[in-house]
């Protein structure tokens, strides 16, 4: 738990923090937001003592952090910044392993951690471990930046506009990843942004600041429905009306005439079906319509070559992206663009199959939007 008690900070005559009181619980995803210069970064940096308050106290798990050795404190709190700040003289592996190395972990242990970390981000060790930062895209660099912050398993991670400099598609992907990660690893995350979409998407609680003060702390829904003042209302834009005016969902783009199969189909039967329908994948479902996964023709051919005869049940791939029919369309599209498959499977709330959204669907809808139906 992080507890701010009346934290103040001034530069010369300018009061930058005017008595911050804030409580962030273990495992909470807290997002600081507010106009430029309102003190978000300053607040964040007081947590790892890159900035020392003039007065007031900050407690982590009940202990006053001003009594800690700042270097030790920082090694136990992850830190990610907008400019990424990977060390250009170190490989990805060395960047990720740096905090464990500072903490004098054994070589073997560090090696294990680096492997684990890359796995979390689904980055192939052999492909990435020995790359230098300049050899990667901004999105990949920031993934490594996040992994570097997580490597020594800090319970708290501070992130200052970590995705602010990335292109929108990469940003969406990384937002999804960080939300997943937080669910899995149960970190306490303090995240600064000035993008309300981002805050609404990822926050458990949004902390709205203005001119060095906290104006409102609330869940995204609460802040949408009950913004405390006009400034917050204007930050929310016309999203409040979005609640009635639902944004487009994948349902609107879905393609329902799809080729399906049951897991007990023989290889031969499945291939015959694929040939007739001119497709290279089949969507596999249970008798009760529950979605199971997909089978690909190359997997079947592979097995046939080795002379195996069996049912397609053993070849089901479950890593295809899925979305529920009421998922925001934009989000699913971004996921689809990043995916190696060329479609997304759309499910109903009870996990039964509803349809698919293909890249062609998207292209068509975009064309319609641009040139009319």
């Amino acid at each position, binding site marked *: 738990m992080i507890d701010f008690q009346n934290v103040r900070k001034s530069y010369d005559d300018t009061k930058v923090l005017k008595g911050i009181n804030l409580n962030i619980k273990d495992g909470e995803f807290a997002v600081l937001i507010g106009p430029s210069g309102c003190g978000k970064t300053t607040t964040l940096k007081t947590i*790892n003592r890159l900035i020392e308050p003039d007065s007031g106290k900050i407690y982590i798990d009940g202990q006053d952090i001003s009594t800690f050795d700042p270097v030790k404190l920082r*090694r136990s709190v992850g830190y990610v910044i907008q400019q*990424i700040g990977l060390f*250009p003289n170190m490989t990805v592996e060395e960047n990720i392993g740096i905090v464990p190395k500072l903490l004098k972990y054994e070589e073997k242990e560090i090696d294990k951690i680096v492997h684990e970390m890359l796995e979390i981000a689904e980055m192939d060790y052999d492909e990435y471990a020995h790359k230098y930062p300049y050899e990667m895209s901004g999105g990949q660099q920031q993934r490594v930046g996040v992994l570097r912050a997580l490597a020594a398993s800090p319970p708290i991670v501070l992130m200052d506009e970590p995705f602010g400099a990335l292109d929108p598609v990469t940003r969406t992907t990384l937002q999804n990843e960080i939300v997943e990660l937080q669910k899995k690893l149960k970190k306490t995350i303090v995240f600064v942004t000035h993008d309300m979409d981002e805050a609404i998407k990822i926050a458990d609680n949004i902390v709205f600041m203005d001119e060095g003060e906290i104006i409102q702390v609330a869940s995204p829904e609460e802040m949408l429905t009950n913004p405390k003042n006009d400034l917050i209302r204007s930050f929310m834009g016309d999203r409040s009306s979005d609640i009635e005016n639902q944004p487009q969902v994948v349902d609107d783009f879905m393609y329902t005439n799809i080729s399906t199969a049951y897991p007990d189909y023989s290889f031969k039967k499945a291939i015959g079906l694929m040939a007739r329908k001119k497709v290279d994948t089949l969507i596999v479902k249970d008798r009760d319509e529950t979605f199971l996964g997909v089978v690909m023709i190359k997997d079947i051919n592979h097995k046939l070559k080795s002379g195996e005869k069996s049912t397609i049940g053993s070849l089901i791939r479950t890593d295809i992206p899925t979305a529920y029919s009421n998922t925001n369309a934009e989000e699913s599209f971004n996921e689809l663009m990043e995916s190696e498959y060329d479609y997304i499977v759309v499910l109903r709330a009870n996990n039964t199959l509803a349809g698919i959204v293909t890249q062609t669907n998207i292209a068509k809808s975009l064309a319609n939007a641009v040139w009319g139906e």
Partner: protein
Amino acid sequence: MTIDMITTHLLLVFFSVLLTIIFGVPLGVVAYIFPKARKIILKVVEVLQTVPALALLGVIMVFLGPDRATVIIGLFAYSLLPVVLNTYTGLVEVDPAVKEAAKGIGMTKINRLFLVELPLALPLIFSGVRLAIVTSVGVAVFGAFVGGGGLGSVIYESIRVSNMKLLLQSTAVLIVMAVGFDFVMSKIEKQMNKKLTGNSVD
């Protein structure tokens, strides 16, 4: 002109530049870390270089006598500026985001210096050493006047007896030395930059 003289010349340059590195890099680091020492250090090395080389050697000779040590120390003092300045500049110019990250993840000042800042400043420091070497090759010629030997004595001698051929030969050797060092070290410097940033220009 003998091989011996060329070797002597190279040794004079070698030992003086070795001293320059041994003292110059730490001085640059001190200038970077301690703002109070910065002005003094940078001023002193700058003044050292503005003193005419011959005068500097003369002054040192008063204390040490005409000797190779005099030449080496003179060259050392004369070539400090590029190494100190480049070390200092290289450290100052490390990307602030990288410095902030280094501090934020829990590196001590010493950690930051040795794990991040010096490695990143290395190409620029190397460039300073290159300048020091190239300058020293030329300035070492004056060593002949204070008992240093080397190619300076050949040039001095050939002027004295008006031996044009010898004068040209020894000058050519000097030029080849300077240009050669410059060429090879520039190549290495480019490689260093490439390893850090992916481009060789900078």
